[in-house]
């Protein structure tokens, strides 16, 4: 369980990130994981694969996504602070999730498989996977916790419109973690024909490394765009952290730049009592879930604790293993943001910039506001640059937000 002591963080290989990661899976899946690892490593050095992925990014997703200065929002962050949002919300399907599904989707054909299974929390990864399946002519089954199918009903309909089968998971806590359990069971039973298109940087090796690599385009683009706009690196980068794929994606280009402070904001929920949050770093400790060792919300018996967040996409009791490693190494600072704080930031971005963010992304915006209140730890100049990853758009959250803010006229609010 070692990693190279030197070498760039941005290309740290699995299966282990320090004491984290690995492959804690039933043996039936090992052959499929080995095949995936092999096909992936061959693909990323194959010019045909990289050209096809780049082409889909451009002509299908709309990459590069813009980097938008948000001065009216920045005025609330602090005097002189320049805030830029990386607009993953403007990607096709409305979030960063498309970056990963196109990459993995292209691998599926190389493995000779014909079917995708995926888990989804907020629905964004499920929609992205259903989209890739339609685009690439693959069958698709998406598992979604029953609680999430209710709070994200429109995304269920979107997935069905795209031809996917959506299965509401009615066991356990009926949220994202149980959807992953069901997707894993399906994969164990159908591994010959089926690829599990895991949506985040957790799970067994090679997923954490592979998904990070497919998402790293976020930070690479943002770094180049910022250099063009300002001629500088950012002073700090803020992202929300559920499983952690958008955060790894934007952090990766800056991990080896010591002057850039990195901040991950996890779901603080209503408070930090068990079951009221998804603050794995603030309230969890190391354990194994869904194939990887990482920080985990668990009880004294190692049973997984329930989590809560106003945002379905952050409502997960564990976190990607590379985040755990970066946490222990002190390279990234992680902090919980409460539901209320996130919703305030959500409304602020709507009203100052005309951008409705995903509630997940609003946690990063709330984090930015917090960083503005004390810039001593990260600002290197009087006009520091803060890069916020706007990982998704908020169309799916309008109903939740309308209820939160009491905006409905018919007594539903």
């Amino acid at each position, binding site marked *: 369980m070692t990693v190279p002591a030197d070498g760039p963080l941005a290309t740290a290989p699995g299966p282990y990130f320090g004491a984290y990661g690995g492959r804690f899976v039933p043996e039936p899946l*090992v052959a499929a994981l080995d095949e995936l690892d092999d096909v992936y490593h061959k693909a990323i050095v194959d010019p045909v694969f990289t050209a096809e992925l780049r082409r889909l990014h451009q002509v299908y997703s709309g990459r590069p996504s813009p980097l938008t200065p948000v001065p009216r929002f920045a005025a609330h962050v602090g005097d002189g602070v320049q805030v830029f949002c990386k607009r993953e919300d403007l990607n096709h399907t409305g979030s960063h999730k498309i970056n990963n599904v196109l990459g993995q989707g292209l691998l599926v054909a190389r493995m000779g498989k014909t079917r995708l299974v995926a888990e989804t929390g907020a629905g964004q990864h499920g929609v992205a996977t259903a989209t890739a399946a339609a685009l690439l002519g693959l069958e698709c089954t998406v598992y979604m916790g029953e609680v999430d199918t209710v709070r994200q009903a429109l995304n269920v309909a979107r997935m069905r419109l795209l031809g996917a089968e959506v299965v509401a998971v009615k*066991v356990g806590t009926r949220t994202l973690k149980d959807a992953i359990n069901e997707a894993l069971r399906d994969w164990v039973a159908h591994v010959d024909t089926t690829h599990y298109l895991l949506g985040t940087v957790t799970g067994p090796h090679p997923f954490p490394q592979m998904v990070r690599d497919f998402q790293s385009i976020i930070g690479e683009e943002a770094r180049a765009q910022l250099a063009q706009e300002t001629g500088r690196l950012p002073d700090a980068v803020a992202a929300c952290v559920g499983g952690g794929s958008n955060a790894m994606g934007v952090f990766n280009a800056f991990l080896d730049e010591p002057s850039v402070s990195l901040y991950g904001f996890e779901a603080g929920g209503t408070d930090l009592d068990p079951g009221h949050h998804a603050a794995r770093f603030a309230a969890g400790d190391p354990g194994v879930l869904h194939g990887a060792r990482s920080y985990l919300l668990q009880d004294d018996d190692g049973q997984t604790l329930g989590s809560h967040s106003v945002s379905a996409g952050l409502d997960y009791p564990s976190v990607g293993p590379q985040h755990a490693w970066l946490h222990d190494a002190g390279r990234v600072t992680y902090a919980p943001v409460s539901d209320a704080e996130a919703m305030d930031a959500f409304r602020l971005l709507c009203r100052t910039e005309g951008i409705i963010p995903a509630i997940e992304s609003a946690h990063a915006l709330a984090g930015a506001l917090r960083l503005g209140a004390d810039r001593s730890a990260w600002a290197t100049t009087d006009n520091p640059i803060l890069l916020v990853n706007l990982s998704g758009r908020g169309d799916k959250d309008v109903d939740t937000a309308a209820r939160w803010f009491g905006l409905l006229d018919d007594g539903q609010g």
Partner: protein
Amino acid sequence: MSSTARHLDALAAQGRPALVAYLPVGFPSVPGSVDAVRTAIDAGADVVELGVPYTDPVMDGPVIQRAVDLALRRGARVRDSLAVVEQVAGLGAPVLVMTYWNVVLRYGVDAYARDLAAAGGAGLVTADLIPDEADEWIAASDAHGLDRVFLVAPSCTPERLELVARSSRGFVYAASTMGVTGVRSSVGTHAETLVTRTRDAGAQHVCVGLGVSTGEQAAEVGAYADGVIVGSALVRTLLDAPTTNDGLDALAQVTSQLAAGVSRARSAS
């Protein structure tokens, strides 16, 4: 030598494979699971696989999920697994504990091995621990003289089969069909091939699980396997019964049928 392997050899000398009965700790209650194990042993189970309830049992199908979910809701704790082992260990059937890895990690790998050995347990079946990740468990099981049962599946390469065979003690658990636990109408033609391949890879004893529910299937599988592992078909009797006593009666009946199937598995037919 492993006590489980010795037991399998003794049964083989009698001309039959073992019936391995899976039952979850804490279902229908902690004392109820002790009664269930005793019932299964009395009705012909040769080896017991006691499941530790876990919130995220990804290798288990709906029947066992439901039972362990109820066990957890009713307050089953990991330490109850040791208490149940202690109460059923002296009944003539080796008692293995089947667990997901995080509960052992949380308890402490060496501490759990020590306490399991002290309770009279024979070893662990690890559903989501592969030998590659098992250094700590291999050391602890060596130190405390416990069996370690790892899984193989039809998807395993010859190299994987060798690694699992080399790392296991007691027996190797052959997951006969690709899939999670549950009752199936057919066990699958993969099973016999897998057993042969696993033996060729060096395994001394191979038991087959996942999908066996009837005496006929037990006889069919027992013709070539060292043991026939049955879980969901037993647990279902307890889940479906209107009362605890009805459940135990049904459990005894199904176990007897399976035991009869196992007994005739190697007779000329």
